[in-house]
């Protein structure tokens, strides 16, 4: 009874003296093929991953009305005329028809888009099905009041210079999730240049970590104090009831603050 090894040893001896190229030549050629196909696969998949996939992933949709933000900001003064906080502190978000109807009960200018808005929506008492670039999944809790009213942030930090736009952008909808491309960001690799380029959880965390660090950086003993705190926290869990000093992502129950 022969072993597998013995059989393997047998194989070249049976082939020797045949018409095939000599072993070193054959080996070199095979390696070239291997490398070639490796690169073919590599490049093809890189093309698929970086170029084709992002194109396939998003469908392109036009807003029902081409809205001119710049014009409205000029007329009304600021964002909060239309995107306001209600008396109970909740944020109104995208205006409903009742917000527009005050001025647009009749067609005012000669813009065909305005005419379309007035005749097809205002007169029909039909809400415009705006496609919202910044819409987050339903489980995400986000309080505009906490950030804008309490935190003093401006709209641009998260939403960019949308107030200066004269036309609505194409809305790119993720075919899998149904949310806007703006959430992940235009850059498929997830890098961003501006704070408003992305709206994923990491982007929330960037800011919150910064806020945490800046709160403690003026304290001379801060790094040492933090180290001691962390040692205590890891070694003796439960010592700090509220995990004071943790980031929004590491506090106890932190996940459920936003993921409700």
């Amino acid at each position: 009874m022969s072993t597998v090894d013995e059989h393997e040893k047998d194989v070249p001896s049976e082939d020797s003296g045949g018409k095939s190229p000599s072993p070193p030549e054959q080996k070199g050629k095979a390696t070239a093929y291997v490398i070639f196909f490796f690169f073919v696969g590599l490049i093809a998949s890189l093309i698929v991953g970086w170029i084709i996939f992002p194109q396939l992933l998003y469908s392109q949709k036009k807003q029902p009305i081409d809205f001119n933000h710049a014009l409205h900001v000029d007329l009304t003064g600021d964002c909060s005329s239309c995107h306001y906080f209600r008396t109970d502190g909740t944020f109104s978000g995208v205006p409903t028809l009742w917000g527009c109807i005050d001025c647009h009960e009749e067609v005012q200018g000669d813009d065909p888009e305005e005419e379309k808005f007035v005749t097809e929506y205002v007169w029909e008492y039909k809400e415009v099905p705006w496609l919202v670039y910044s819409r987050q999944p339903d489980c995400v809790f986000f309080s505009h009041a906490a950030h804008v009213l309490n935190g003093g942030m401006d709209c641009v930090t998260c939403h960019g210079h949308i107030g200066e736009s004269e036309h609505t952008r194409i809305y790119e909808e993720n075919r899998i999730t149904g949310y806007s491309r703006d959430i992940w960001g235009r850059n498929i690799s997830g890098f961003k240049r501006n704070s408003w380029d992305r709206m994923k959880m990491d982007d929330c965390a960037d800011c919150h970590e910064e806020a945490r660090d800046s709160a403690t950086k003026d304290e001379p003993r801060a790094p040492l104090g933090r180290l001691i705190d962390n040692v205590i926290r890891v070694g003796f869990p439960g010592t700090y009831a509220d995990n004071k000093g943790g980031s929004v992502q590491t506090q106890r129950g932190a996940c459920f603050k936003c993921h409700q």
Partner: protein
Amino acid sequence: MSFIIGGAAGTALSPLPWKLTDDLSIWTQMWPWTPVPPDGEISYDGSTCTLCPGGCGIQVRKVDRRAVKIEGTPGHPINDGGICILGLSGLQLLYGPTRVKGPMKQTGGRGSGRWVPVSWEEALEEVAGRLAEIRDQGRPESLAVFSGNRRGTIPAMLTRFLTAYGSPNIVTGASLADSYELALHRMQGVQASAGLDLDQTDFLLSFGSGVLDGWGSPVRMFRTNSALKDGRGRLVQLEPRLSNTAAKADQWISINPGTEAALALGLAHVIVLEKRYRAQFVNEFGGGFDAFKQMVMSGYAPETVAQITGVDAKTIVTLARDFSKASMPAAVCGRGAGDTPGSMNEVFAVHALNALVGAVNSAGGVWAVPEPVEYPWPEPEMDETAARGMQAGRLDGAGQGRYTATSSRPEQFFEAIRDGEGYPLEALFVVEANPCYSQRDPETVNAALAKIPYVVSFSSFLDETARNADLILPNHVYLERYEDVVNPGVFNRPFVGLVQPVVDPQFNTRNVGDVIIELAQGLGEPVGGAFPWDSYEDCLEQAYEEQWDALTGDGFWMDEDFTPAGWPEAFETASGKFEFLPEGLEGGYAPLEIEGASGEYPLVLVPYDSMRVSTGYIGNPPFMTKTVSDTVLKGDALLVEVNPKTAAQLGLSEGSRAVLTTAKDSVDVRVHLYEGLMPGLVAMAKGFGHTAYDKYLAGKGSNVNRLIGPVQDPVSGLDAAWGVRAKLTRA
């Protein structure tokens, strides 16, 4: 192979796997088919609940224009922020699948279910044409209206419409409130509804009233019970079944059903014998007291009463002493939720007991509450046709002969039509009522409807009666309409609650008030002249002109300064005194006989109410059915309660299939052994056995009304049946 490795390496170096992982996780956590309620502005709109006669104030939480939750109105005099399970479930009636979405005509004959949508114009033209035809034939009295409610502007408009048209046949559903009104009329000589000063009562003696099972204004009764529990006083429940009320009372005394009047008189015997009555009241304002005294002394000694009621004599004596010792006692009656009128001798006896302890128009007692307003409309003008029609006399015999003080006799109404008594009806309108389900012996109603050529339902839901109609002109549901709720429950001050639209009408429905105005105006003079309003809202505002600011501001109007008439002014009887033995009681206080021979039917079936089941016009919303215990409803099978001793005699055990038979009908049931029920009885839940509505309600259990025929009370002429003789056999 290397291609695959290369591909894998390339893929790993591209964003594809990371992005896909992220997207898939979002997708799996946010399934696109999971409904996400839209966000919007949150607001609260106030209104009044109409789902039971309780009259609670509600505020509806809305997101934009969508109602998302119903809550009780804080500070409201009736419910002060509380709400019951039916009130909470109201949104299922608004958004539920059984709403009638617009006017519909049944083309394949009644019950065929072949409905064709018609426009309002077409529908109203048809009805007006039909009515004009009947009137032209000189038979206006052959139009009748059956209304679930008796008070408020809508029933007033319906009556006005019929008067101007020429028909006396406005028939309204009857309840315990009617019996109480009659008792106040006969004993105190007043036209008033009975109110209870529950903010002060410190001893509530309930003769089978479901204080915590839907009686009066349920939420107000809950609040009263809490106050009693918190140390203000006691609740004593007299009932043959351990109901929720009995279980939560300070004392539960099991009593033979139907013998409540005898027990009240037995208590009176002890109070009179021991001179524990309020001497000032009895001596100065007690009419016929000597005769009453003689009656209770001779016929209702504790030992005699013990034999009748099954309550032992010692308990009777102790209870009478406790009741009379309380500083602000009140005794109430009317079984369960009080949605049937009940026996007058019981109401008389219990109210006489109140009088003995001075609990009439006094702190903590029973108050006579007058109507809050008189509508300022002049009497409608009648032409000759109308005047002749009004002379024809009511089909139900109410307001005539023995029953002059009874406004409506619904049972007699349907029986008269079924038996062809009086004159035949040509058309019937059914408003906010479902008599084909909720009347005792609905077969009579079905048979009566079969004899009426034209039936129009105004129901918002495709209920049993609507299915039996030729045309449905759907009313808005209460959250979409204006209406008034007048002197609700047993509230002790003149009170009006305003029902206001909190959401836009969801479907092509119209307020029945507007439809009546349109119909009247469509008929021309003189009917149209009686309805000078542009809309029902106009009419409502005119009816409550002085109260309108309060109504629209607070949602209710109440006569804050109201105090009931003091004893010297309170009684408008011929003698000017409280009549202990009121007129019409010639039959005495003998317990009312129920239907069925005891030989053939050895058991007694008693229906019971629960807060978890809505039993009237409003079908049980699915949320409520979900809360019903599986000892009441298991799957589609209804369980009846039987004492284990009785069950053992019948060879039945827990869960046994059985057939429950009465003189009226027989139904399949299952048995639930319950030691809380007196032996010899069978208790069956009300509110099940619908055949209409949707899958959440239809086909679940049996309708207890099918098993019980009405028994006419000799004084009121209303239904006094509290049960029926029955037999239960193994299936």
